[in-house]
Protein backbone atom coordinates (compact mmCIF):
# COMPACT_ATOMS: atom_id res chain seq x y z
CA UNK A 1 0.00 0.00 0.00
CA UNK A 2 1.46 3.30 -1.06
CA UNK A 3 1.41 6.11 1.46
CA UNK A 4 -0.18 8.50 -1.04
CA UNK A 5 -3.29 6.31 -1.17
CA UNK A 6 -4.20 6.55 2.51
CA UNK A 7 -5.94 9.95 2.40
CA UNK A 8 -8.26 8.76 -0.38
CA UNK A 9 -9.11 5.56 1.46
CA UNK A 10 -9.71 7.38 4.76
CA UNK A 11 -12.06 9.79 3.00
CA UNK A 12 -13.93 6.86 1.43
CA UNK A 13 -14.11 5.16 4.82
CA UNK A 14 -15.70 8.31 6.23
CA UNK A 15 -18.23 8.42 3.39
CA UNK A 16 -18.98 4.75 3.99
CA UNK A 17 -19.67 5.46 7.66
CA UNK A 18 -22.00 8.32 6.77
CA UNK A 19 -23.90 6.16 4.27
CA UNK A 20 -24.25 3.37 6.84
CA UNK A 21 -25.65 5.78 9.43
CA UNK A 22 -28.00 7.29 6.86
CA UNK A 23 -29.24 3.82 6.02
CA UNK A 24 -29.94 3.16 9.70
CA UNK A 25 -31.79 6.44 10.25
CA UNK A 26 -34.01 6.47 7.20
CA UNK A 27 -36.75 4.06 6.22
CA UNK A 28 -40.52 3.75 6.15
CA UNK A 29 -40.27 5.02 9.72
CA UNK A 30 -37.45 7.50 10.18
CA UNK A 31 -35.64 7.44 13.48
CA UNK A 32 -34.12 10.53 15.07
CA UNK A 33 -30.36 10.21 15.73
CA UNK A 34 -31.02 10.44 19.48
CA UNK A 35 -33.06 7.24 19.58
CA UNK A 36 -30.48 5.42 17.46
CA UNK A 37 -27.86 6.44 19.99
CA UNK A 38 -30.17 5.28 22.76
CA UNK A 39 -30.62 1.86 21.17
CA UNK A 40 -26.90 1.48 20.59
CA UNK A 41 -26.20 2.18 24.27
CA UNK A 42 -28.73 -0.47 25.26
CA UNK A 43 -31.68 1.82 25.97
CA UNK A 44 -34.63 2.90 23.84
CA UNK A 45 -38.04 1.33 23.45
CA UNK A 46 -38.35 -2.30 22.43
CA UNK A 47 -40.01 -1.24 19.17
CA UNK A 48 -37.01 0.90 18.31
CA UNK A 49 -34.69 -1.93 19.33
CA UNK A 50 -36.43 -4.44 17.04
CA UNK A 51 -36.58 -1.99 14.15
CA UNK A 52 -32.96 -1.01 14.36
CA UNK A 53 -31.11 -4.11 15.49
CA UNK A 54 -33.20 -6.88 13.97
CA UNK A 55 -34.49 -5.28 10.79
CA UNK A 56 -32.43 -2.35 9.67
CA UNK A 57 -28.90 -3.14 10.83
CA UNK A 58 -28.70 -6.60 9.17
CA UNK A 59 -30.17 -5.21 5.97
CA UNK A 60 -27.88 -2.19 5.78
CA UNK A 61 -24.86 -4.31 6.62
CA UNK A 62 -25.84 -6.87 3.96
CA UNK A 63 -26.30 -4.10 1.40
CA UNK A 64 -22.84 -2.70 2.10
CA UNK A 65 -21.09 -6.07 1.85
CA UNK A 66 -23.01 -7.02 -1.30
CA UNK A 67 -22.10 -3.76 -3.02
CA UNK A 68 -18.48 -4.23 -2.01
CA UNK A 69 -18.42 -7.79 -3.34
CA UNK A 70 -19.94 -6.82 -6.69
CA UNK A 71 -17.65 -3.84 -7.24
CA UNK A 72 -14.54 -5.83 -6.35
CA UNK A 73 -15.62 -8.68 -8.62
CA UNK A 74 -16.25 -6.19 -11.42
CA UNK A 75 -12.80 -4.66 -11.07
CA UNK A 76 -11.26 -8.16 -11.18
CA UNK A 77 -13.25 -9.22 -14.25
CA UNK A 78 -12.18 -6.09 -16.10
CA UNK A 79 -8.54 -6.98 -15.48
CA UNK A 80 -9.02 -10.65 -16.31
CA UNK A 81 -10.71 -9.95 -19.65
CA UNK A 82 -8.63 -6.84 -20.35
CA UNK A 83 -11.95 -5.25 -21.18
CA UNK A 84 -13.26 -2.15 -19.43
CA UNK A 85 -16.83 -3.18 -20.29
CA UNK A 86 -16.71 -6.36 -18.24
CA UNK A 87 -18.88 -6.66 -15.13
CA UNK A 88 -19.29 -9.50 -12.59
CA UNK A 89 -22.04 -11.08 -14.68
CA UNK A 90 -20.29 -10.88 -18.02
CA UNK A 91 -19.43 -14.58 -18.03
CA UNK A 92 -23.05 -15.68 -17.65
CA UNK A 93 -22.89 -16.03 -13.90
CA UNK A 94 -26.09 -14.11 -13.14
CA UNK A 95 -28.03 -16.21 -15.64
CA UNK A 96 -26.96 -19.47 -14.04
CA UNK A 97 -27.81 -18.15 -10.60
CA UNK A 98 -31.12 -16.77 -11.87
CA UNK A 99 -32.30 -20.03 -13.44
CA UNK A 100 -31.42 -21.99 -10.31
CA UNK A 101 -33.09 -19.45 -8.01
CA UNK A 102 -36.30 -19.37 -10.05
CA UNK A 103 -36.44 -23.16 -10.08
CA UNK A 104 -36.03 -23.13 -6.29
CA UNK A 105 -38.93 -20.67 -6.04
CA UNK A 106 -41.06 -22.92 -8.26
CA UNK A 107 -40.23 -25.81 -5.96
CA UNK A 108 -41.49 -23.69 -3.09
CA UNK A 109 -38.20 -23.51 -1.17
CA UNK A 110 -37.59 -20.87 1.50
CA UNK A 111 -35.07 -18.03 1.34
CA UNK A 112 -32.19 -20.25 2.46
CA UNK A 113 -33.05 -22.78 -0.24
CA UNK A 114 -33.24 -20.07 -2.90
CA UNK A 115 -29.87 -18.64 -1.81
CA UNK A 116 -28.20 -22.03 -1.90
CA UNK A 117 -29.67 -22.76 -5.32
CA UNK A 118 -28.47 -19.39 -6.65
CA UNK A 119 -24.97 -20.06 -5.32
CA UNK A 120 -24.88 -23.49 -6.95
CA UNK A 121 -26.24 -22.09 -10.22
CA UNK A 122 -23.59 -19.38 -10.28
CA UNK A 123 -20.79 -21.87 -9.72
CA UNK A 124 -22.13 -24.31 -12.33
CA UNK A 125 -22.26 -21.51 -14.88
CA UNK A 126 -18.72 -20.46 -13.97
CA UNK A 127 -17.36 -23.97 -14.39
CA UNK A 128 -19.22 -24.38 -17.67
CA UNK A 129 -17.72 -21.21 -19.13
CA UNK A 130 -14.29 -22.17 -17.88
CA UNK A 131 -14.45 -25.68 -19.36
CA UNK A 132 -15.93 -24.64 -22.70
CA UNK A 133 -13.72 -21.58 -23.19
CA UNK A 134 -10.63 -23.60 -22.42
CA UNK A 135 -11.76 -26.24 -24.93
CA UNK A 136 -8.82 -27.47 -26.93
CA UNK A 137 -7.14 -24.11 -27.33
CA UNK A 138 -5.86 -21.43 -25.00
CA UNK A 139 -8.34 -19.25 -23.17
CA UNK A 140 -7.69 -15.89 -24.68
CA UNK A 141 -9.82 -13.11 -23.16
CA UNK A 142 -11.96 -12.77 -26.32
CA UNK A 143 -12.72 -16.48 -26.31
CA UNK A 144 -13.68 -16.40 -22.65
CA UNK A 145 -15.85 -13.33 -23.20
CA UNK A 146 -17.64 -14.80 -26.21
CA UNK A 147 -18.34 -18.06 -24.35
CA UNK A 148 -19.77 -16.09 -21.44
CA UNK A 149 -21.95 -13.89 -23.60
CA UNK A 150 -23.38 -16.85 -25.53
CA UNK A 151 -24.03 -18.80 -22.35
CA UNK A 152 -25.72 -15.74 -20.80
CA UNK A 153 -28.06 -15.60 -23.78
CA UNK A 154 -28.95 -19.26 -23.20
CA UNK A 155 -29.66 -18.66 -19.51
CA UNK A 156 -31.73 -15.61 -20.49
CA UNK A 157 -33.94 -17.76 -22.72
CA UNK A 158 -34.43 -20.27 -19.89
CA UNK A 159 -35.37 -17.46 -17.50
CA UNK A 160 -37.92 -16.10 -19.97
CA UNK A 161 -39.32 -19.60 -20.36
CA UNK A 162 -39.70 -20.06 -16.59
CA UNK A 163 -41.27 -16.62 -16.19
CA UNK A 164 -43.78 -17.14 -18.99
CA UNK A 165 -44.95 -20.48 -17.66
CA UNK A 166 -45.11 -19.58 -13.95
CA UNK A 167 -48.18 -18.71 -11.91
CA UNK A 168 -48.99 -15.01 -11.77
CA UNK A 169 -48.77 -14.94 -7.98
CA UNK A 170 -45.15 -16.08 -8.15
CA UNK A 171 -44.09 -13.55 -10.76
CA UNK A 172 -43.50 -10.48 -8.54
CA UNK A 173 -41.14 -12.43 -6.26
CA UNK A 174 -39.23 -13.75 -9.25
CA UNK A 175 -38.94 -10.37 -10.93
CA UNK A 176 -37.78 -8.73 -7.70
CA UNK A 177 -35.10 -11.38 -7.31
CA UNK A 178 -33.92 -10.91 -10.91
CA UNK A 179 -33.73 -7.14 -10.51
CA UNK A 180 -31.90 -7.43 -7.24
CA UNK A 181 -33.68 -7.06 -3.94
CA UNK A 182 -32.45 -6.81 -0.36
CA UNK A 183 -35.77 -7.45 1.39
CA UNK A 184 -34.69 -10.98 2.39
CA UNK A 185 -31.11 -9.99 3.23
CA UNK A 186 -30.81 -10.54 6.96
CA UNK A 187 -27.58 -12.56 7.25
CA UNK A 188 -24.70 -10.11 6.73
CA UNK A 189 -22.04 -12.28 8.35
CA UNK A 190 -21.11 -14.44 5.33
CA UNK A 191 -20.80 -11.61 2.74
CA UNK A 192 -18.75 -9.51 5.16
CA UNK A 193 -16.44 -12.38 5.93
CA UNK A 194 -15.91 -13.21 2.26
CA UNK A 195 -15.34 -9.56 1.34
CA UNK A 196 -12.78 -8.95 4.08
CA UNK A 197 -10.91 -12.18 3.37
CA UNK A 198 -10.86 -11.46 -0.37
CA UNK A 199 -9.52 -7.94 0.16
CA UNK A 200 -6.85 -9.16 2.56
CA UNK A 201 -5.85 -11.75 -0.02
CA UNK A 202 -5.83 -9.26 -2.91
CA UNK A 203 -3.88 -6.46 -1.26
CA UNK A 204 -0.40 -7.96 -1.84
CA UNK A 205 -1.36 -8.75 -5.46
CA UNK A 206 -2.13 -5.17 -6.49
CA UNK A 207 1.12 -4.56 -8.36
CA UNK A 208 0.83 -7.90 -10.16
CA UNK A 209 -2.66 -6.93 -11.32
CA UNK A 210 -1.29 -3.61 -12.59
CA UNK A 211 1.24 -5.51 -14.69
CA UNK A 212 -1.41 -7.96 -15.89
CA UNK A 213 -3.51 -5.07 -17.20
CA UNK A 214 -0.73 -4.45 -19.71
CA UNK A 215 -1.44 -7.78 -21.41
CA UNK A 216 -0.54 -11.37 -20.62
CA UNK A 217 2.64 -11.47 -22.73
CA UNK A 218 4.06 -8.30 -21.21
CA UNK A 219 3.12 -9.56 -17.74
CA UNK A 220 4.82 -12.90 -18.38
CA UNK A 221 7.94 -11.09 -19.58
CA UNK A 222 7.96 -9.15 -16.30
CA UNK A 223 7.91 -12.33 -14.25
CA UNK A 224 4.19 -12.83 -13.56
CA UNK A 225 2.97 -16.45 -13.59
CA UNK A 226 0.13 -15.48 -15.87
CA UNK A 227 -1.85 -18.73 -16.11
CA UNK A 228 -1.90 -19.25 -12.34
CA UNK A 229 -2.74 -15.60 -11.70
CA UNK A 230 -5.59 -15.51 -14.23
CA UNK A 231 -7.06 -18.72 -12.86
CA UNK A 232 -6.94 -17.22 -9.39
CA UNK A 233 -8.67 -14.01 -10.44
CA UNK A 234 -11.33 -15.99 -12.27
CA UNK A 235 -12.14 -18.19 -9.30
CA UNK A 236 -12.09 -15.31 -6.86
CA UNK A 237 -14.29 -13.02 -8.96
CA UNK A 238 -16.78 -15.84 -9.51
CA UNK A 239 -16.86 -16.64 -5.79
CA UNK A 240 -17.42 -13.01 -4.78
CA UNK A 241 -20.22 -12.64 -7.31
CA UNK A 242 -21.85 -15.91 -6.29
CA UNK A 243 -21.92 -14.81 -2.65
CA UNK A 244 -23.36 -11.42 -3.62
CA UNK A 245 -26.05 -13.08 -5.71
CA UNK A 246 -27.12 -15.32 -2.83
CA UNK A 247 -27.66 -12.25 -0.64
CA UNK A 248 -29.52 -9.94 -2.97
CA UNK A 249 -30.29 -11.58 -6.31
CA UNK A 250 -28.75 -10.08 -9.42
CA UNK A 251 -28.21 -6.42 -8.60
CA UNK A 252 -27.02 -4.82 -11.82
CA UNK A 253 -24.68 -1.97 -12.58
CA UNK A 254 -22.71 -1.75 -9.31
CA UNK A 255 -19.98 -4.03 -10.61
CA UNK A 256 -19.57 -2.10 -13.87
CA UNK A 257 -20.08 1.40 -12.58
CA UNK A 258 -18.06 1.57 -9.38
CA UNK A 259 -14.63 0.47 -10.73
CA UNK A 260 -15.01 3.04 -13.51
CA UNK A 261 -16.03 5.77 -11.09
CA UNK A 262 -12.97 4.99 -8.99
CA UNK A 263 -10.73 5.00 -12.06
CA UNK A 264 -12.11 8.34 -13.22
CA UNK A 265 -11.73 9.93 -9.79
CA UNK A 266 -8.66 8.26 -8.27
CA UNK A 267 -6.57 6.83 -11.11
CA UNK A 268 -5.60 3.37 -12.24
CA UNK A 269 -3.44 1.80 -9.53
CA UNK A 270 -5.06 -1.51 -8.53
CA UNK A 271 -3.62 -1.16 -5.04
CA UNK A 272 -6.00 1.76 -4.56
CA UNK A 273 -8.66 0.67 -7.03
CA UNK A 274 -9.60 -2.60 -5.33
CA UNK A 275 -10.20 -1.35 -1.75
CA UNK A 276 -11.71 1.88 -3.06
CA UNK A 277 -14.10 -0.11 -5.29
CA UNK A 278 -15.14 -2.24 -2.33
CA UNK A 279 -15.90 0.85 -0.24
CA UNK A 280 -17.56 2.69 -3.12
CA UNK A 281 -19.71 -0.30 -4.06
CA UNK A 282 -20.80 -0.64 -0.44
CA UNK A 283 -21.78 3.04 -0.21
CA UNK A 284 -23.69 2.95 -3.49
CA UNK A 285 -25.74 -0.10 -2.59
CA UNK A 286 -26.55 1.16 0.92
CA UNK A 287 -27.75 4.50 -0.45
CA UNK A 288 -29.68 2.84 -3.26
CA UNK A 289 -31.34 0.48 -0.79
CA UNK A 290 -32.21 3.35 1.52
CA UNK A 291 -33.92 5.08 -1.39
CA UNK A 292 -35.64 1.81 -2.34
CA UNK A 293 -37.09 1.62 1.16
CA UNK A 294 -38.14 5.28 1.45
CA UNK A 295 -39.11 6.59 -2.00
CA UNK A 296 -42.53 4.91 -2.10
CA UNK A 297 -42.81 3.85 1.56
CA UNK A 298 -44.34 1.66 2.79
CA UNK A 299 -43.92 0.03 -0.64
CA UNK A 300 -40.38 -1.18 -1.36
CA UNK A 301 -38.71 -0.99 -4.76
CA UNK A 302 -36.15 -3.52 -5.99
CA UNK A 303 -32.73 -2.05 -5.26
CA UNK A 304 -31.40 -2.92 -8.74
CA UNK A 305 -33.79 -0.42 -10.27
CA UNK A 306 -32.39 2.34 -8.07
CA UNK A 307 -28.71 1.50 -8.71
CA UNK A 308 -29.29 1.83 -12.44
CA UNK A 309 -31.46 4.95 -12.17
CA UNK A 310 -28.86 6.61 -9.93
CA UNK A 311 -25.85 5.25 -11.72
CA UNK A 312 -26.62 5.87 -15.37
CA UNK A 313 -26.93 9.68 -15.35
CA UNK A 314 -24.07 10.13 -12.88
CA UNK A 315 -21.80 7.90 -14.91
CA UNK A 316 -22.70 9.56 -18.22
CA UNK A 317 -21.97 12.96 -16.73
CA UNK A 318 -18.56 11.86 -15.47
CA UNK A 319 -17.76 10.21 -18.77
CA UNK A 320 -18.77 13.33 -20.67
CA UNK A 321 -16.50 15.46 -18.52
CA UNK A 322 -13.47 13.19 -18.56
CA UNK A 323 -11.02 13.07 -21.41
CA UNK A 324 -10.49 9.32 -21.34
CA UNK A 325 -12.11 6.24 -19.91
Amino acid at each position, binding site marked *: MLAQHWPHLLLLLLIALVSLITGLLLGSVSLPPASVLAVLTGEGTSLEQTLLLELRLPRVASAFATGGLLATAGALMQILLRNPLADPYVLGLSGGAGVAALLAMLAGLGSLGISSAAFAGALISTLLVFAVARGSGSWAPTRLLLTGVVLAAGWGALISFILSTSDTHQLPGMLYWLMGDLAQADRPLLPWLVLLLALAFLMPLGR*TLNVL*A*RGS*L*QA*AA*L*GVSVVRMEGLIYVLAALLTAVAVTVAGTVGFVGLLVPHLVRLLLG*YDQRLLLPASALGGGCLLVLADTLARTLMAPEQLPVGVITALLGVPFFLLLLYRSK*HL
Partner: protein
Amino acid sequence: MSPPLLETRDLLLDIPGRPTSSRWNWQIRAGQSWAILGPNGAGKTTLLMTLAGLRKPRSGSLQLDGRALEKHSSSARARYLGVLFQQHQDDFPARVLDTALMGRHPYLRSWQTESREDQELARRALQRMDLEDLQERNLQTLSGGERQRLALATLLTQDPQLLLLDEPTNHLDLHHQMAVLALVEEEVSQGKSALMTLHDINLAVRFCSHLFLLYPDGQACWGTREEMLELKALEKLYQQPLMTTQVEGQTLFFPRSVRK
Protein backbone atom coordinates in the same frame (compact mmCIF):
# COMPACT_ATOMS: atom_id res chain seq x y z
CA MET B 1 35.30 -19.57 -19.91
CA SER B 2 32.01 -18.60 -18.24
CA PRO B 3 28.88 -20.36 -19.50
CA PRO B 4 27.01 -18.59 -22.30
CA LEU B 5 24.19 -16.33 -21.12
CA LEU B 6 21.67 -18.14 -23.27
CA GLU B 7 22.19 -21.40 -25.11
CA THR B 8 19.88 -23.45 -27.35
CA ARG B 9 20.24 -27.24 -27.39
CA ASP B 10 18.81 -28.95 -30.49
CA LEU B 11 16.20 -26.21 -30.60
CA LEU B 12 13.36 -26.56 -33.08
CA LEU B 13 10.81 -23.74 -33.21
CA ASP B 14 7.15 -24.62 -33.10
CA ILE B 15 5.90 -23.16 -36.38
CA PRO B 16 2.93 -24.91 -38.03
CA GLY B 17 3.88 -26.62 -41.30
CA ARG B 18 7.61 -26.25 -40.65
CA PRO B 19 9.70 -29.38 -41.43
CA THR B 20 11.57 -30.88 -38.49
CA SER B 21 14.92 -30.91 -40.23
CA SER B 22 17.20 -28.31 -38.74
CA ARG B 23 17.92 -28.09 -35.03
CA TRP B 24 19.98 -25.28 -33.64
CA ASN B 25 22.81 -25.29 -31.10
CA TRP B 26 23.41 -21.62 -30.67
CA GLN B 27 25.12 -19.60 -27.94
CA ILE B 28 24.62 -15.98 -26.93
CA ARG B 29 27.33 -14.52 -24.73
CA ALA B 30 27.67 -11.35 -22.70
CA GLY B 31 28.85 -8.40 -24.76
CA GLN B 32 27.35 -9.66 -28.01
CA SER B 33 24.61 -7.95 -29.97
CA TRP B 34 22.71 -10.09 -32.44
CA ALA B 35 20.50 -9.09 -35.34
CA ILE B 36 17.98 -11.63 -36.56
CA LEU B 37 17.40 -11.11 -40.27
CA GLY B 38 14.82 -12.85 -42.39
CA PRO B 39 11.83 -12.29 -44.64
CA ASN B 40 8.24 -11.89 -43.42
CA GLY B 41 6.86 -15.04 -41.87
CA ALA B 42 10.24 -16.71 -41.41
CA GLY B 43 9.61 -16.94 -37.67
CA LYS B 44 11.70 -14.08 -36.26
CA THR B 45 9.13 -13.16 -33.62
CA THR B 46 8.51 -16.82 -32.77
CA LEU B 47 12.26 -17.25 -32.28
CA LEU B 48 12.38 -14.25 -29.97
CA MET B 49 9.37 -15.42 -27.93
CA THR B 50 10.85 -18.91 -27.66
CA LEU B 51 14.17 -17.55 -26.43
CA ALA B 52 12.28 -15.46 -23.88
CA GLY B 53 10.55 -18.60 -22.57
CA LEU B 54 7.13 -17.25 -23.58
CA ARG B 55 6.56 -19.96 -26.20
CA LYS B 56 7.35 -23.63 -25.99
CA PRO B 57 9.69 -25.00 -28.69
CA ARG B 58 8.58 -28.07 -30.62
CA SER B 59 11.66 -29.81 -29.28
CA GLY B 60 15.01 -29.04 -27.73
CA SER B 61 15.75 -26.93 -24.70
CA LEU B 62 17.18 -23.64 -23.51
CA GLN B 63 19.94 -23.04 -20.98
CA LEU B 64 19.99 -19.71 -19.18
CA ASP B 65 23.26 -18.92 -17.41
CA GLY B 66 24.15 -22.63 -17.23
CA ARG B 67 20.78 -23.87 -15.95
CA ALA B 68 17.66 -25.05 -17.75
CA LEU B 69 15.43 -22.03 -18.43
CA GLU B 70 12.42 -23.53 -16.67
CA LYS B 71 14.50 -24.17 -13.52
CA HIS B 72 14.66 -20.39 -12.97
CA SER B 73 11.72 -18.82 -11.15
CA SER B 74 9.60 -16.56 -13.32
CA SER B 75 10.87 -13.41 -11.60
CA ALA B 76 14.50 -14.57 -11.77
CA ARG B 77 13.99 -15.14 -15.49
CA ALA B 78 12.63 -11.61 -15.84
CA ARG B 79 15.84 -10.27 -14.29
CA TYR B 80 17.88 -12.08 -16.98
CA LEU B 81 15.62 -11.62 -19.99
CA GLY B 82 13.61 -8.56 -20.98
CA VAL B 83 11.39 -8.32 -24.03
CA LEU B 84 10.31 -5.43 -26.22
CA PHE B 85 7.12 -6.53 -27.97
CA GLN B 86 6.04 -5.50 -31.41
CA GLN B 87 2.53 -4.77 -30.22
CA HIS B 88 1.56 -2.95 -27.06
CA GLN B 89 -1.72 -3.60 -25.29
CA ASP B 90 -3.27 -0.34 -24.18
CA ASP B 91 -6.88 -1.21 -23.36
CA PHE B 92 -6.43 0.18 -19.88
CA PRO B 93 -5.24 3.68 -19.08
CA ALA B 94 -2.04 4.08 -17.08
CA ARG B 95 0.32 6.90 -16.21
CA VAL B 96 3.54 6.96 -18.26
CA LEU B 97 5.74 6.98 -15.14
CA ASP B 98 3.81 4.08 -13.58
CA THR B 99 4.20 2.09 -16.78
CA ALA B 100 7.96 2.55 -16.78
CA LEU B 101 8.00 1.63 -13.08
CA MET B 102 6.50 -1.78 -13.91
CA GLY B 103 9.99 -2.70 -15.05
CA ARG B 104 10.87 -3.07 -11.36
CA HIS B 105 8.22 -5.77 -10.83
CA PRO B 106 10.64 -8.73 -10.99
CA TYR B 107 12.81 -7.15 -8.28
CA LEU B 108 10.07 -6.55 -5.72
CA ARG B 109 8.33 -8.92 -3.33
CA SER B 110 4.57 -8.88 -3.65
CA TRP B 111 3.98 -6.76 -0.54
CA GLN B 112 6.84 -4.36 -1.31
CA THR B 113 6.23 -0.99 -2.93
CA GLU B 114 8.53 0.79 -5.32
CA SER B 115 11.31 2.60 -3.46
CA ARG B 116 12.74 6.02 -4.16
CA GLU B 117 15.58 4.34 -6.10
CA ASP B 118 13.08 2.46 -8.25
CA GLN B 119 11.33 5.74 -9.04
CA GLU B 120 14.70 7.27 -9.87
CA LEU B 121 15.56 4.39 -12.24
CA ALA B 122 12.24 4.80 -14.05
CA ARG B 123 12.72 8.58 -14.33
CA ARG B 124 16.22 8.14 -15.73
CA ALA B 125 14.97 5.59 -18.28
CA LEU B 126 12.23 7.99 -19.40
CA GLN B 127 14.85 10.70 -19.70
CA ARG B 128 17.04 8.51 -21.92
CA MET B 129 14.01 7.98 -24.17
CA ASP B 130 13.18 11.73 -24.30
CA LEU B 131 9.93 11.14 -22.42
CA GLU B 132 10.58 13.05 -19.20
CA ASP B 133 8.04 15.74 -20.12
CA LEU B 134 5.31 13.16 -20.63
CA GLN B 135 5.66 11.21 -17.38
CA GLU B 136 2.34 12.36 -15.92
CA ARG B 137 0.42 11.67 -19.13
CA ASN B 138 -1.90 8.73 -19.77
CA LEU B 139 -0.21 6.32 -22.15
CA GLN B 140 -3.37 6.12 -24.28
CA THR B 141 -2.74 9.71 -25.38
CA LEU B 142 0.76 8.97 -26.73
CA SER B 143 1.69 8.68 -30.40
CA GLY B 144 2.90 5.37 -31.84
CA GLY B 145 6.54 6.41 -31.64
CA GLU B 146 6.20 7.74 -28.08
CA ARG B 147 4.46 4.53 -27.06
CA GLN B 148 7.35 2.52 -28.52
CA ARG B 149 9.87 4.62 -26.60
CA LEU B 150 7.84 4.11 -23.41
CA ALA B 151 8.07 0.33 -23.92
CA LEU B 152 11.83 0.73 -24.29
CA ALA B 153 11.96 2.85 -21.14
CA THR B 154 10.11 0.08 -19.26
CA LEU B 155 12.69 -2.39 -20.57
CA LEU B 156 15.57 -0.15 -19.45
CA THR B 157 13.96 0.07 -16.00
CA GLN B 158 13.73 -3.70 -15.96
CA ASP B 159 17.50 -3.73 -16.62
CA PRO B 160 17.81 -7.35 -17.83
CA GLN B 161 21.10 -9.06 -18.82
CA LEU B 162 19.78 -9.89 -22.29
CA LEU B 163 17.52 -7.49 -24.18
CA LEU B 164 15.23 -9.25 -26.65
CA LEU B 165 13.92 -6.58 -29.02
CA ASP B 166 11.24 -7.27 -31.62
CA GLU B 167 11.72 -4.59 -34.27
CA PRO B 168 12.94 -1.90 -31.89
CA THR B 169 12.88 0.76 -34.62
CA ASN B 170 9.15 0.29 -35.31
CA HIS B 171 7.18 3.56 -35.38
CA LEU B 172 10.33 5.60 -34.69
CA ASP B 173 11.53 8.60 -36.64
CA LEU B 174 15.07 8.58 -38.04
CA HIS B 175 16.58 10.40 -35.08
CA HIS B 176 15.00 8.11 -32.52
CA GLN B 177 15.90 5.00 -34.53
CA MET B 178 19.55 5.96 -34.27
CA ALA B 179 19.18 7.04 -30.64
CA VAL B 180 17.56 3.77 -29.60
CA LEU B 181 20.12 1.58 -31.36
CA ALA B 182 22.98 3.67 -29.96
CA LEU B 183 21.49 3.19 -26.52
CA VAL B 184 21.32 -0.58 -26.97
CA GLU B 185 24.94 -0.46 -28.16
CA GLU B 186 25.86 1.41 -24.98
CA GLU B 187 24.12 -1.19 -22.79
CA VAL B 188 25.98 -3.97 -24.62
CA SER B 189 29.32 -2.20 -24.17
CA GLN B 190 28.64 -2.32 -20.41
CA GLY B 191 28.44 -6.12 -20.46
CA LYS B 192 24.80 -6.68 -21.40
CA SER B 193 23.74 -8.58 -24.52
CA ALA B 194 21.08 -7.77 -27.07
CA LEU B 195 19.20 -9.66 -29.71
CA MET B 196 16.92 -7.85 -32.12
CA THR B 197 14.83 -8.54 -35.17
CA LEU B 198 15.47 -5.93 -37.85
CA HIS B 199 14.32 -5.34 -41.40
CA ASP B 200 17.15 -2.98 -42.29
CA ILE B 201 20.39 -4.81 -43.15
CA ASN B 202 22.37 -1.59 -42.93
CA LEU B 203 21.23 -0.84 -39.38
CA ALA B 204 22.06 -4.44 -38.45
CA VAL B 205 25.54 -4.11 -39.89
CA ARG B 206 26.11 -0.81 -38.17
CA PHE B 207 24.93 -1.72 -34.67
CA CYS B 208 25.26 -5.51 -34.27
CA SER B 209 28.35 -7.66 -33.76
CA HIS B 210 26.65 -10.90 -34.85
CA LEU B 211 24.02 -11.87 -37.41
CA PHE B 212 21.48 -14.70 -37.40
CA LEU B 213 19.96 -15.39 -40.82
CA LEU B 214 16.58 -17.13 -40.62
CA TYR B 215 15.27 -18.70 -43.82
CA PRO B 216 11.55 -19.36 -44.43
CA ASP B 217 12.15 -23.13 -44.68
CA GLY B 218 13.47 -23.26 -41.11
CA GLN B 219 17.17 -23.35 -42.04
CA ALA B 220 19.38 -20.83 -40.27
CA CYS B 221 23.01 -19.80 -40.17
CA TRP B 222 24.73 -17.50 -37.79
CA GLY B 223 28.09 -16.00 -36.91
CA THR B 224 29.99 -12.75 -36.59
CA ARG B 225 28.97 -9.85 -38.78
CA GLU B 226 32.12 -10.20 -40.90
CA GLU B 227 31.50 -13.90 -41.57
CA MET B 228 27.86 -13.47 -42.42
CA LEU B 229 27.93 -10.51 -44.81
CA GLU B 230 27.86 -12.55 -48.00
CA LEU B 231 25.94 -10.90 -50.78
CA LYS B 232 24.77 -14.27 -52.16
CA ALA B 233 23.49 -15.43 -48.76
CA LEU B 234 21.58 -12.20 -48.21
CA GLU B 235 20.07 -12.30 -51.70
CA LYS B 236 18.90 -15.86 -51.09
CA LEU B 237 17.52 -14.85 -47.70
CA TYR B 238 15.25 -12.14 -49.05
CA GLN B 239 14.76 -13.59 -52.57
CA GLN B 240 15.83 -10.17 -53.74
CA PRO B 241 18.81 -9.10 -55.88
CA LEU B 242 20.99 -6.65 -53.96
CA MET B 243 23.77 -4.20 -54.78
CA THR B 244 26.39 -2.73 -52.49
CA THR B 245 28.24 0.53 -52.20
CA GLN B 246 30.86 1.91 -49.86
CA VAL B 247 30.17 5.04 -47.82
CA GLU B 248 32.69 6.25 -45.23
CA GLY B 249 34.22 2.78 -45.04
CA GLN B 250 30.93 0.95 -44.44
CA THR B 251 29.39 -1.42 -46.96
CA LEU B 252 25.76 -0.50 -47.63
CA PHE B 253 23.19 -2.85 -49.16
CA PHE B 254 20.40 -1.74 -51.50
CA PRO B 255 17.70 -3.68 -53.28
CA ARG B 256 18.15 -3.84 -57.05
CA SER B 257 14.97 -3.07 -58.96
CA VAL B 258 13.65 -6.19 -60.62
CA ARG B 259 12.55 -5.70 -64.24
CA LYS B 260 9.97 -8.09 -65.62
